[in-house]
């Protein structure tokens, strides 16, 4: 995230937030917290800083601690900065049986970082995740909304080259359909 960027949603996003809040009964606006955090994460650089969480608390009219509690509980919320392109590698049983470890190791060697870390140029993060439910094509990775199956080292090389060239950004507002 650009430090200078003001932590404030656009008019359009605010309208979206109101619409989500309207799905829930009067006074239950906290129910919109998970979706709003997804949106905030996508709009403010792929992670949730304390000021961003405080902002979310203010628009839902709840306490900041209620937001921190939730943000730290769910694995999809990043509470530390991430790269533009987060490569999520499935580390669960079926992928593991089909060679996920080698894929992870290859990515680590290629990007010269460990899983969970971000490259120094801020381009890539490797994140290990649980089952992506495409075990028929194991090993599988997910980048943004896209699944990539039957991963091999060669395919990883191709993808990374492609992402690198196109400055791939993986976070995207999930409600922007």
């Amino acid at each position, binding site marked *: 995230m650009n430090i200078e960027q003001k932590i404030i949603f656009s008019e359009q996003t605010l309208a979206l937030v109101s619409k989500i809040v309207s799905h829930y009964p009067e006074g239950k606006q906290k129910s919109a917290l998970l979706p709003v955090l*997804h949106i905030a994460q996508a709009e403010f650089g792929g992670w949730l800083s304390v000021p961003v969480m405080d902002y979310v608390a203010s628009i839902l009219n709840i306490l900041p601690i209620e937001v921190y509690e939730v943000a730290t509980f769910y694995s999809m919320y990043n509470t530390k900065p991430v790269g533009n392109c987060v490569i999520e590698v499935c580390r*669960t*049983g079926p992928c593991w*049986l089909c060679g996920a470890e080698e894929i992870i*190791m290859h990515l680590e060697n290629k990007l010269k970082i460990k899983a969970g870390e971000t490259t120094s140029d801020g381009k890539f993060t490797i994140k290990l995740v649980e089952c992506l439910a495409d075990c028929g*094509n194991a090993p599988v990775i997910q980048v943004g*909304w896209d699944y990539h199956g039957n991963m091999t080292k060669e395919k990883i090389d191709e993808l990374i080259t492609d992402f690198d060239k196109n400055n791939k950004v993986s976070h995207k507002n999930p409600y922007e359909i």
Partner: protein
Amino acid sequence: MEKMKVLIGMASCGIAAGASKVYDKIYALKESEKLDFELVKTGCIGMCFREPLVEIIEDGNSFLYGEIDEKKAVEIFEKHIKLSEPIKEYVVKTDLFETKDDTFWKGQVKIALRNCGVIDPESISDYETQNGYNAIKKILNENISQETVIQSIIDSGLRGRGGGGFSTGMKWKFAFNNKSDEKYIICNADEGDPGAFMDRSVLEGDPHAVLEGMTIAAYAIGGTEGVIYCRAEYPLAIIRLNIALAQAREKGYLGKNIYGKQGFNFDIHVKEGAGAFVCGEETALMASIEGERGMPRRRPPFPAASGLWKKPTNINNVETFANVPSIILNGANSYNIYGTEKSKGTKVFALTGKINRGGLVEVPMGITINDVIFKLGGGIQDNKKFKAVQLGGPSGGCIPEHLTDTIVDYDSVTATGAIMGSGGMVVMDETTCMVDMARFFLDFTQKESCGKCTFCRIGTKRMLEILTRITEGEGREGDIEMLEELSVQIKDNSLCGLGQTAPNPVLTTIKYFRNEYEAHIHSKKCPAHGCKKLLTYTVVEDKCTGCTVCAKNCPVNAITGERKQKHLINQETCIKCGVCFNKCKFEAIKLS
């Protein structure tokens, strides 16, 4: 004559395998050559192992092509689409001649998956042509009472497909009996079991079936609002659900006075999760919808009495709901003719791991595990020997080879120590270390524990430490007994199913593969050669030709040696990745 129809399997699995490129290619050719045929994006037909898939239907004959890339797509376009000349060698399924995958279909009965891979999931009219929304219309047109609908579901014998296996009809009855102006219908689409993708396939391939099932439930119990709680890891499912919801509202299948029935108001929205396995547990799920941490609470009160925002709530799994329209339309008998005495109907299984045909099958209850793995699933990859299958994911257990004549039904599977679970079958071969496998599943539950109960939070951690120690060759006398003791305590002192079932993978592997535990502990050996720390890779001198391939590929430069000279592995540096073993063409790397 009907127009030729070309269907491309575009569920997440198909897309991951490259179906978008195939679609784009055929679309471009269709446009440039101005050919008149119907090009349809469809869901997953279950043959994930042959994706990308292209099906061509012409004059009532269907040809399903497998493993299609752009090049083959062009060939198919030139020969089959343009000249009606099927390319036999790419066909993986047809009624006209035999193919090598025919046994994948023998014995399958599709009820929950009836439309997956058959219709365009983004078209409500496609769903309608397959009897879609006819079940809810039948109820409303014939004024069938709520009690009768519930009775049909009870009679069908349908049990919850989310893992618990509770009678769906009985659950509806409880929710019906609790009076309230507001009642919620929740669809549990948080599918988090490792190796399970049945629900994703239904949501991506036939979202309207789930909406219709939920609407029927709403009618039956007096539900006023619906929520589909879907994993955020399933963006395509969420997109297709939202498309389906908009279409259903527009057609009056959702909203106020549904299908003209005064006072029948029901609408649904999708709520995304945020990556927490425990949110699949129903009380945690409701807490998550309310914007809280997904932590389970004590039951009773059950959701049927006090659920979402303390209102009566009925919660069912995706596959459960997908079965409902068919049962209502075709009668309880159409469902309960399949299955065993206490487990009726069909069940969808996801076949994964070391199996030849990884994918989705729907089979009648009562079929043997052996048939599923060897007949439908085509046996084990690379002609290796079958060792065990994990049923029920991290909450389940393994079923070893000598028990594969067990039939799939709730009670028979439970008798082995495993559970039916939601339908994941993770197949393991002789190279899988069962201790390591148990460690792997426990690592999962340990990470996913919500932390509320001490035994689940700390007990699983202790168990994991012991298992890790054993797989690293540091096992001690008494470790097996300690694992067993901890298991009992965790099972007895945990609030929700996560903790209560977390020790199952460990207990079943101890039960069936105790010798493997003992070999690790007493002789510091891993019989399956799976545990890295217990392996050594060495160069067999008289086989090594000095080709340097191993040294070039070793990620940590642990191998030294000049060209045409014998090579040597430095055991201190070696991380036991096995690359050299796999790369050497002369079998000069030995594993012991």
